[in-house]
């Protein structure tokens, strides 16, 4: 595996730092050579900036990639949105000499140049390809026997022709990683449906965005799970903050805990919920923390 740099994005470091901490602990435990990526910016967010102005989207995305190129490291994302933006930008710039030239004209003004020498990875795809469920299973110290509603998130698997991760309708790879830590990935209707946050819908049309979220939460609640697991801080924010907003606006209390996969894996590596920042979510479900305590005490 090529050496990596950790690209943080916006929501992880600036809203859910527990995801950053959990990721760092997991990378260290798996002895993955992953350095910081000092000075990185917003990816920029694919749904909005990409649609506002392509040159701007490519300029900012390529700068983040170039920072990693300069270190000779592949860039590791822990967010589906950042992954979507950076993979697509990287591919477009690698394959289109004209775009590469026009983007480099902007980068030249800050003394940088996109060369196209590194790849963009997502932590789930990386764990699956470079380790696989079996090796993860061997690495854990404590099976986490929870019932999990897995949310893949759209941009991890779609557009599928850019991702090469197999079917976007009924993928299995992420479920296998859930099972590798001893949890059960519980099926539920519309599991692959969007959380409603992307494309600038959450920022501009919150009520509609929450209606889409509620559609998922109703089905997840019926599946009787212990928690929701995602691999995208924006989906994470939507599921966590969104539950509070739905309680305020619609008077429906779900109270379902939300974990990023690195937090679930961190639990299986023996770290405490506090070390992983799971207690920093807005949804605080006491029953869940007691369950985690019972698992920790064996």
């Amino acid at each position: 595996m090529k050496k990596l740099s950790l690209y943080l994005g916006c929501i992880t470091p600036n809203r859910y730092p527990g995801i950053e901490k959990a990721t760092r602990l997991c990378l260290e435990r798996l002895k993955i050579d992953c350095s910081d990526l000092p000075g990185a910016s917003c990816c920029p967010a694919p749904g909005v900036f990409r649609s506002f102005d392509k040159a701007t989207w490519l300029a900012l995305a390529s700068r983040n990639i170039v920072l990693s190129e300069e270190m000779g490291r592949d860039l590791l994302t822990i967010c589906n949105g950042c992954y979507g933006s950076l993979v697509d930008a990287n591919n477009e710039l690698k394959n289109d000499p004209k775009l590469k030239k026009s983007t480099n004209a902007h980068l030249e003004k800050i003394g940088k140049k996109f060369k196209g020498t590194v790849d963009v990875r997502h932590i789930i795809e990386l764990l699956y390809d470079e380790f696989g469920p079996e090796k993860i299973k061997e690495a854990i110290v404590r099976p986490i026997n929870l019932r999990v509603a897995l949310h893949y998130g759209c941009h991890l698997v779609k557009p599928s022709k850019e991702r090469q991760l197999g079917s976007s309708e009924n993928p299995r790879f992420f479920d296998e990683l859930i099972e590798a830590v001893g949890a059960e990935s519980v099926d539920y209707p519309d599991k692959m449906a969007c959380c409603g946050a992307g494309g600038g819908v959450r920022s501009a049309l919150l009520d509609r965005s929450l209606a889409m979220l509620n559609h998922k939460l109703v089905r997840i609640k019926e599946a009787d799970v212990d928690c929701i697991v995602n691999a995208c801080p924006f989906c994470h924010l939507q599921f966590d903050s969104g539950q509070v907003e739905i309680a305020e606006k619609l008077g429906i209390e779900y109270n379902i805990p939300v974990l990023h996969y690195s937090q679930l894996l961190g639990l299986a590596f023996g770290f405490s919920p506090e070390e992983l920042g799971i207690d920093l979510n807005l949804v605080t479900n006491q029953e869940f923390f007691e369950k985690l305590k019972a698992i920790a005490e064996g």
Partner: protein
Amino acid sequence: MDPSEISNALKEAGLEILTCMQCGTCSGSCPSGRYTGMITRKLVRKARVGGDILHDEDLWMCTTCYTCQERCPRGISITDAILKIRTIAVHEGIMLPAHRKVSQLVLQYGHAVPINDSVKERRVKLGMESLPETVHKYPDALADVQTLLKSCGFDKLAVSEG
């Protein structure tokens, strides 16, 4: 803007929509349409035959989940086409106020979601530095991002009112 101009702009970007047979698979697959009233099929038709698509609020209800694009039996890149039509709208000065605000945040901080004091405290509680290893910690890096945004004319695009 003339509808043929939109159709041509899409074609130039490699996004052919004229093969659409209006089957409605896109609308039937749309998680947003179920709750927002967005009708993808009509949006594609409007882009093709005319109507004021740039001011159509459906344009902004797409979460870019790509399900319609995955399922289109004619292989039309529907989501990418919606994004391209948004680009045309933004360049005509049409942008939702909330999106203008997010744009300002990126211009000012280099982050669409900048840090705040309570998150700084949480970071320290977790044993990390209060500022992350991003533009937040490195003013020179932020200056570079701002130079790029200016070079692309994004500062003017984000403030211009329609």
